[in-house]
Each structure stands twice: as C-alpha cells, then as structure tokens.
C-alpha cells in the first residue's frame, strides 16, 4: 500500500507539474468563456441586424399589416410606378421591395403580389411577410363567414393537456426532458472525463515504455500496482483540473455577466446542449410565472442525493473500466500513432451512449432502448444517469433495473480490469512491432 501511495503521488505530481497541463488548466476556462461570450455576442449582432423593405401598395388591402419591428422596417412608397419603386429601392440599397398590385379581391391581390430582392431572401423574412398576408386573408374569409375578429381570437386559443401521475401528482410537459438534461450533464461530464484523462493514462504508459524505465519500476512493484497507481494519480490530477475549471469558469462567467451586460439567457443557447434541450429551455423561458414556479418545484424534487451518489458510483466504476482499457492500449503499443485502431472501439460505446441517451431517454426515459442502454455496462454510466433524475421506483427507474445495472457494471469492472492488467503486464515488456488483436488475445494466456 505504501508503494501504491508513492506511485499515486508521483503520477499526480508528474501530471500537475507538466507545463502543457498547467497551460490547459489556466487557458481552458478563458477559452470556453471567451467562446461563449463570442457566440453570445455574434448571436446578438445577428439578431439585431435590421432589414428595410420598401412597400409599394397600390391595393386597398393590407394597409396596416406592415408595422416595423426590430427585425424588419417597412418604408411605404406612394405614387410611384413599379419600375421607379424598384430603382429607388436599389438606389437606397434597401433589402427588398414588396409590390402589392391593384385589385378588386384580396385573394387576387395576394396572388399577384411580389417581393423583389437582389438575391433570394431567407425564409425568416418571407415567413414574416407571409404571416401578414395569411392573417389578412384569414380575416377576410372569416368576415365572409360572418365571424368577428374577437370570435376568431377566441377560437385560436391554444390548449395544453393536463398531466398527472396515477397518484394524482400533477406534472408538466417537458419535465422529463428537463430531468434528462440534468442527468445528461452528469453523463456528459463522465464521458469528457474518460476521454481526456483516459488518454492521459495511455500516454503516460507509452512514456514509460519509450523511456525504458518500465522494467526498473516493475522490478520493485507489481505491474498491477503501477497501473492502478497511474490511473488513480492521473484521475486525481484530472479532478483537480476539473474543479479549477468549474470554479474559474463560473467566476469568469459571473464577471462577464456583471461587466459586459450580456443577457445570461444567451449562454443557454451557446452551451453544449443538444437541439432537443434547447427547445425545452426556450419553452421554459417563455412559460408563464406559475409554470416557472412549477418547474422550479420539479427541479427541487429531483432526488439530488441519489443522483450524486449514483454519479459517484457510475463515475468511479465507468472511469476505471475505460481507463484500464486505455492503460492496456498504451502498454500494447510503442507510440501514440499506433493507438488509433484500438481507440476507436472504446470511444464508440461512449458516443453511442451520449447520442442514444439524448434521443431516446428524452422522448421516453423508460422505453426499451433507454432501459437496454442503461443496463449495458459500457453505456450505463451515462445513460442510467440520464434516467435517474426521475427517481427510483414509481414513475422513475424500477429498482431492479438500477441494481442490475450496478451489478453488471461491477462485474464488468472486475473482468475488464483483470483482462487489461494481463495485457498491460505482457505489453509493457514488448517492444517492436504493433500487435494485432489476435496477439493481444494470446497475451491473455501468458
């Protein structure tokens, strides 16, 4: 044990004293916050770009439809011919000219209206114009049917179905997705951690091989101790780095919000949430106050204790499984370029977990795919965490699934670490050619 502690200490210090590690620790939060600010800024610029459209309305319809917004400003032309209007629009370098010709009927006028522009205008512009036409056309048709504006507004009211569990607890649409986002953030964290620090473990093993110190070390300690010490030391360095990142990034973001006057809601869009999540967030920010309160209550109701404890379990086991595979790969090769063929198969289940998680857990947290992937040990650390904010038991993850997933993970952990340490033990003393999968399999029997 004393030797294991020595190894952990050395690996930790070697990592945190490494120049590029220090640079990354300091630079990453600055880069990430800088990116977010830049994206937020660009979004703002993009949104605030205002287009001017000239309107030559020769008809008696659509008179008050074109009121300027912050996106599009309208300039009304009067007593000009179409050609003159086109020329003026171009001369003034305005975005487009909307021509509404004379006519008896609104339908006929709408059909023969044209939008003249230099290029094909984008859909956000045309949709806005179309909405104006649609509204007027609809009103006209309604008037013919003898329905008033007020009556129409009344008819148009949207409807949301009420949701409740069998126990009578009320819930709200989108809360599952919101919960999955919270679980997904944990799962995503695990994946990033595995990919970054698993890679560090691998490079550290390769370094020991290429510097030829490995045999000196393993004449003093067991290869398994060295592998374990390396994995633990590297992950401690990783946790240190993660904590520094989180603290400094939140501090920087806080400063940015404070001093640069950027709407914090923009960060939501700039974050790494996938599309599904973004829509939910928008919905959230648009929801009336009572619903916000409801969401807040639901978030508080998420079993945080369970989530954090399971996060720790899944994180530790999942990370140990993957990093021991990384260590075995490092031992099997002589240099980093040879690792590609072996790395792809490990990244694959991780990516699969994230994407399957976001697509299937979002729509149906207890569906067969979500269940399958949350039991399969190579994906369960990520997918199960996405399901867990719903709690265990009624309405959430059935207890048996949770237990089976942990037992499978534990079993896989023992098996993989055993296999990896065998490959590691043989591989670290092998120099020369890059091994094939067949040879790796043979090493297991040495």
């Amino acid at each position, binding site marked *: 044990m004393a030797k294991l502690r020595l190894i952990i200490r*050395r690996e930790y210090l070697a990592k945190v004293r490494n120049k590029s590690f220090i640079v990354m620790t300091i630079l990453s939060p600055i880069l990430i916050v800088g990116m977010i600010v830049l994206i937020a800024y660009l979004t703002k610029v993009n949104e605030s770009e205002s287009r001017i459209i000239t309107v030559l309305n020769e008809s008696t319809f659509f008179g008050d439809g074109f009121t300027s917004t912050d996106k599009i400003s309208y300039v009304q032309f009067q007593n000009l011919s179409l050609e003159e209007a086109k020329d003026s629009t171009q001369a003034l370098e305005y975005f487009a000219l909307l021509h509404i010709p004379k006519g008896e009927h609104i339908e006929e006028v709408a059909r023969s209206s044209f939008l003249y522009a230099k290029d094909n205008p984008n859909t956000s512009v045309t949709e806005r114009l179309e909405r104006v036409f649609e509204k007027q056309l609809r009103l006209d048709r309604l008037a013919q049917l003898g329905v008033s504006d007020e009556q129409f507004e009344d008819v148009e009211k949207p409807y949301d179905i009420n949701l409740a569990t069998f126990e009578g607890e009320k819930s709200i649409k989108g809360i599952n997705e919101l919960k999955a986002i919270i679980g997904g953030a944990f799962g995503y964290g695990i994946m990033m951690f595995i990919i970054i620090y698993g890679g560090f473990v691998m490079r550290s093993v390769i370094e020991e091989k290429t*510097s030829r110190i490995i045999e000196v070390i393993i004449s003093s300690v067991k290869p398994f101790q060295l592998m374990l010490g390396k994995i633990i030391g590297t992950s401690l360095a990783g946790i240190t780095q993660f904590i520094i990142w989180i603290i400094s990034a939140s501090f920087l973001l806080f400063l940015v919000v404070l001093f640069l006057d950027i709407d914090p809601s923009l960060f939501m869009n700039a974050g790494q949430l996938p599309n599904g999540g973004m829509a939910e967030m928008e919905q959230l920010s648009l929801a009336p106050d009572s619903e916000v309160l409801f969401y807040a209550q639901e978030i508080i109701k998420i079993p945080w204790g369970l989530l954090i404890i399971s996060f720790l379990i899944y994180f530790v086991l999942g990370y140990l499984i993957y990093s021991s595979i990384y260590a075995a790969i490092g031992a099997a090769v002589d240099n980093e370029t040879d690792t590609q063929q072996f790395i792809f198969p490990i990244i694959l289940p991780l990516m699969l977990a994230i994407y399957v998680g976001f697509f299937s857990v979002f729509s149906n947290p207890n569906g067969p795919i979500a269940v399958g992937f949350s039991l399969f040990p190579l994906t369960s650390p990520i997918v199960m965490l996405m399901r867990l904010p719903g709690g265990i038991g009624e309405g959430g993850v059935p207890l048996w699934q949770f237990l089976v997933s942990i037992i499978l993970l534990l079993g896989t952990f023992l098996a993989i670490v055993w296999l990896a340490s065998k490959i590691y033990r043989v591989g670290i003393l092998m120099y020369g050619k890059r091994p094939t999968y067949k040879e790796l399999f043979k090493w297991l029997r040495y």
Partner: protein
Amino acid sequence: MQNILVADAVSKSYGNYRALGNISLEIPKNRIYGLLGPNGAGKTTFIRIINQITYPDEGRIFFDGNPLSPGHISLIGYLPEERGLYKSMKVGEQALYLAQLKGLGKSEAKKRLKEWFDRFEIGEWWGKKVQELSKGMAQKIQFIVTVLHEPKLLIFDEPFSGFDPINANIIKDEILKLKEKGTSIIFSTHRMESVEELCEYIALIHKSEKVLDGKLSEIKKAYKNNVFEVSMEMENGVQKVSDFFDKKLEILASNFDQVDRRYDLKVKLPSNDTRGILTELTKYGNVTRFEEVIPSANDIFIQTVNEKEGNG
C-alpha cells in the same frame, strides 16, 4: 547456505514458444556469476523470473534457502537491459522515488544518495531534469539507484552496453567493491569477452537450455586441449623444425616471417607435459614465446554448442 540463489528445473513458455526449458542453476554467495548466451537464449526471461516480473510455469526458485517471495524484492537490485529514467523528472527526486519503491525510508534514501552523488562527483545534477543529462550521466544514476538499497543480490543485464570505456571502468570498480562487501552478483550478457575476466562462475544458456555451468577456472581446465602458441627466432631455415614437429605433434597453424626470421606456430601436444619438447626446441632456435592457449568462454560456448548439435 552457500548459495544465494538456486533454480530447480525452471521452465517458462510464451504460447507455443518455450523461453526456458528445465533450467537448474546454483548461484553461489559473494561471487560474480556470468549468465552467458546469445540474444534470445532465455537469459532475460530467467532474470525476470528472479525479479518476479514473470513467473515460471514449472520449477522452483530459492533465495538464500527460502522459496522466492515478494518479500525478497527489496533484497535484489536489478539493472535491466532496457533501462531508462523518466525524462521530465528531476534527477534527485527520481532517484529518491525509485529508492523508496525498493522499500528505503525517505531520509535514509536521501542520505545514501548524497553519499553516492558525492562519490561520483555529480552532486550538481540533483536538481537537473533527466533530459538535460547525457546518456552516460543517466547510466550512472541508474547504477546508483540499482545498488542504493544495498541488496544481497545484484543482477546486471548487459551491464556495459552503452557505457563509454571510462564509465564502464568506474562501474566495474564499483561492482568489485560491492562484491568485497559481500554482495552476490549476476552478469547476464551475450558479449562474453566483456565479463569473462570478472566472472568466477558461469552458466551457458543456448536455445532456452543450459548447456554448461560451473566454476570458470575448472571449465577452462576441462576445455584446454594442450594447444600451445610458440614463437621462435630462427637462425637457419624452418625445414628442420617443421620435420621435428611433424614427427612429434600436430601443427594447427604456422607462419614464417622472412624479414624478422620469426616463426609463429600453433601446435597441439599429445599431453600437457611440455618439459621434453621445450628443451628439444631450443636446439633449433631461440624460443621467445611458449604459451598454453586457454579457451575463451566464447570458444567454449561454440565448442559445446557444436558438440551438442552434432550429437543431436
């Protein structure tokens, strides 16, 4: 116990490849033991078994009379053939780390390291990174780290490969000093001439098997075959001498230098009794050299292997 290490019928296979076949050895205490054989013969596998890096499929190893166990690791010092140091780590810190892995306490390790660094006059390297050192410098550090915990048994795999002659001599002297203090030493090498003068006992390993072992002086005595090298300064021609030799003994090689009138011969005598022959020779000329040819370990190795393979 007079043996520091006894191997009893040790075998090791990697898949279908037999790396060691039934090797039995006795390595005496306080002696220098040469484990000799060409590359790939199985020497390193055997050494790794002693260091418990790998384990034998069959057979047993005894260290100082007891079955080899993890507790013996701190009693063994091993300088592997593939040796190196962490490049970005500082010399002192690294030496300290490796010493602690061998079970030394931190302050004791530090004290001993200072002594060794002073002795080699490399004190100023302590705070340097290994990548700033030359290869020879790094090897001195490796040597110090190997012997620092004062092991009972020291194992050097290809010890002098990569050392420049000056450093090789320094290391050689240090190894001899350690031997005087009572350490048992194993040299493993395929360059037999490099350790021959140091080894008191040897084992020859060939194709995973031991072909010969024992005390080097006795092996040499056994492998002597009454071959002598003779040099003479001739007053007359060489014909008479040749005739004499032809009758009495076998000429293996001969060369006559016309200018110096020196006649060099390699001859095989019927027995190792040289008395009569030497007196006889002086009648033909001035004998400047008369020396028995002692076979080198390399010669013995080649001869043994040839005999084995001839028989097999």
